[in-house]
């Protein structure tokens, strides 16, 4: 899941200051689950924009903004997109990019895209994966230090943690504490012995 958060409404309004005839596109995937681009949030955005004196031509929530097939597929959902002077996309950066690709008017984001994370039992887990393109997560008990350690360390913790907490965010456990505990449970502390060296080519 792509973790994104809503920009402050004032910032969205500032982005749209020279625009009218706005069409809003939400996202039925991650942004819906995170409540930053589902139908309720799209309708709330529509109301707030109208209250701010903007004209909204229409809206739709495709199953995933990042996999919109074509402009026609958006027209099928709401033909008023043809009258739009611009589009506000309530999705992650990928969603905004794909909507830009299939449309010919200015496209604005309502969200800030933060990381590749997850959601479980109502709790959001950011930065679970750094999308490095060379997955090594098995060696770390299913907890990726590239994604979760602010220094992306592979060979063990830095000297910066105090009482098992992260140097960068003292509220967070040092990911190496979590990796150690997990591998200990799995009986695979031997995996920590591996020395990760850099290679080129």
């Amino acid at each position, binding site marked *: 899941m792509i973790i994104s958060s809503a920009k402050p409404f004032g910032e969205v309004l500032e982005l749209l200051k020279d625009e009218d005839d706005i069409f809003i596109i939400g996202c039925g995937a991650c942004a819906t689950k995170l409540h930053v681009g589902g139908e309720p949030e799209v309708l709330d955005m529509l109301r707030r924009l109208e209250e701010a004196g903007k004209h909204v031509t229409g809206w739709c929530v495709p199953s995933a903004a990042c996999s919109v097939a074509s402009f026609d597929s958006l027209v099928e959902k709401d033909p008023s997109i043809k009258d739009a002077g611009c589009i506000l996309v309530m999705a992650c950066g990928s969603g905004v990019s794909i909507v830009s690709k299939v449309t010919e008017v200015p496209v604005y984001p309502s969200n800030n895209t933060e990381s590749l994370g997850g959601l479980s039992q109502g709790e959001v887990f950011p930065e679970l994966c750094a999308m490095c393109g060379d997955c090594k997560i098995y060696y770390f008990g299913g907890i990726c230090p590239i994604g979760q350690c*602010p*220094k*992306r*360390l*592979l*060979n*063990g*913790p*830095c*000297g*910066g*943690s*105090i009482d098992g907490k992260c*140097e*960068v965010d003292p509220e967070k456990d040092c990911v*190496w*504490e979590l990796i*150690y505990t997990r591998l200990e449970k799995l009986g695979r502390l031997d995996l*920590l*012995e591996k*020395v*990760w*060296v*850099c*290679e*080129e*080519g």
Partner: protein
Amino acid sequence: MPRNFKEKLGSDDFLITAEISPPKGTDLCKALADAELIRNFADALNVTDNQRAVMRMSPVAASRALLDAGHEVIMQLTCRDRNRLALQSELLGAYALGIRNICVMTGDHTTKGDHPGARPVYDMDPVQLLDIIRRMKEGHDLAGNLIEGPPAFTVGAVTNTDPSNTMQMLKLRKKARMGLDFFQTQAIYDTGQFEAFMEETLDIEVPVIAGVIPLGSASMAHFMNRNIPGINVPAEIIERMENAEDPTEEGMSICAETIAELKKLCRGIHIMPIGKHKSTPEILEMAGTRKKSR
């Protein structure tokens, strides 16, 4: 010929190294004056690299200025601000300018410093950097290309000294496997714990240079215990500082006593006073260390 830091590492000498910070600016006078205070005591000066992620003059430039003034230097190099290209080119440049000793470390995160918006690099960690330095010394860069005039660095790394911290001890062993010439530690106040650390790591056979920071007050001790990772000032030392008539004098005495203890346990000390080295000669004399050997 006076012996250099590397030769002294291979001897039985108890080594004294001392931290010098490059200036926040272009004027090196203060750093050079600070170094002058300890000319006859320090075997090498350890030049910091944007320590605590606070932007200062390049350690390469400051190291070269100290070399010109007749000091031996150990240049620190962090993984925070440079990718693999920059790290390797910095090392080549440093060696070409006469810098022979380096000490590598991860580096405090940019969010802890004075430019918190800086993009942290961490393209590699110290274990990986040590591996690359080893390859460079053998005549190749990371990509396997030949290096003309390979840099024959003496290489150190830093370590935590809590023997109960399994992950830190594991990382120390990984660093040692990369062919290290010395370890430098965070400031030691608990010599009992340090002795246990030395016993725990006896098999590693890498010379250990223990850090010391003279205390200025009891509140400084409390602050370091809370905020500086790897520092553990024991209660009895804090009590001595609290009861001292002159906390500065007491801090110097404690530091000298610690150094005297460390002389029995490891190969040297690395003194990192807060501010200048004004008191360093007196502390070292109180600790009974000799002036620097030739």
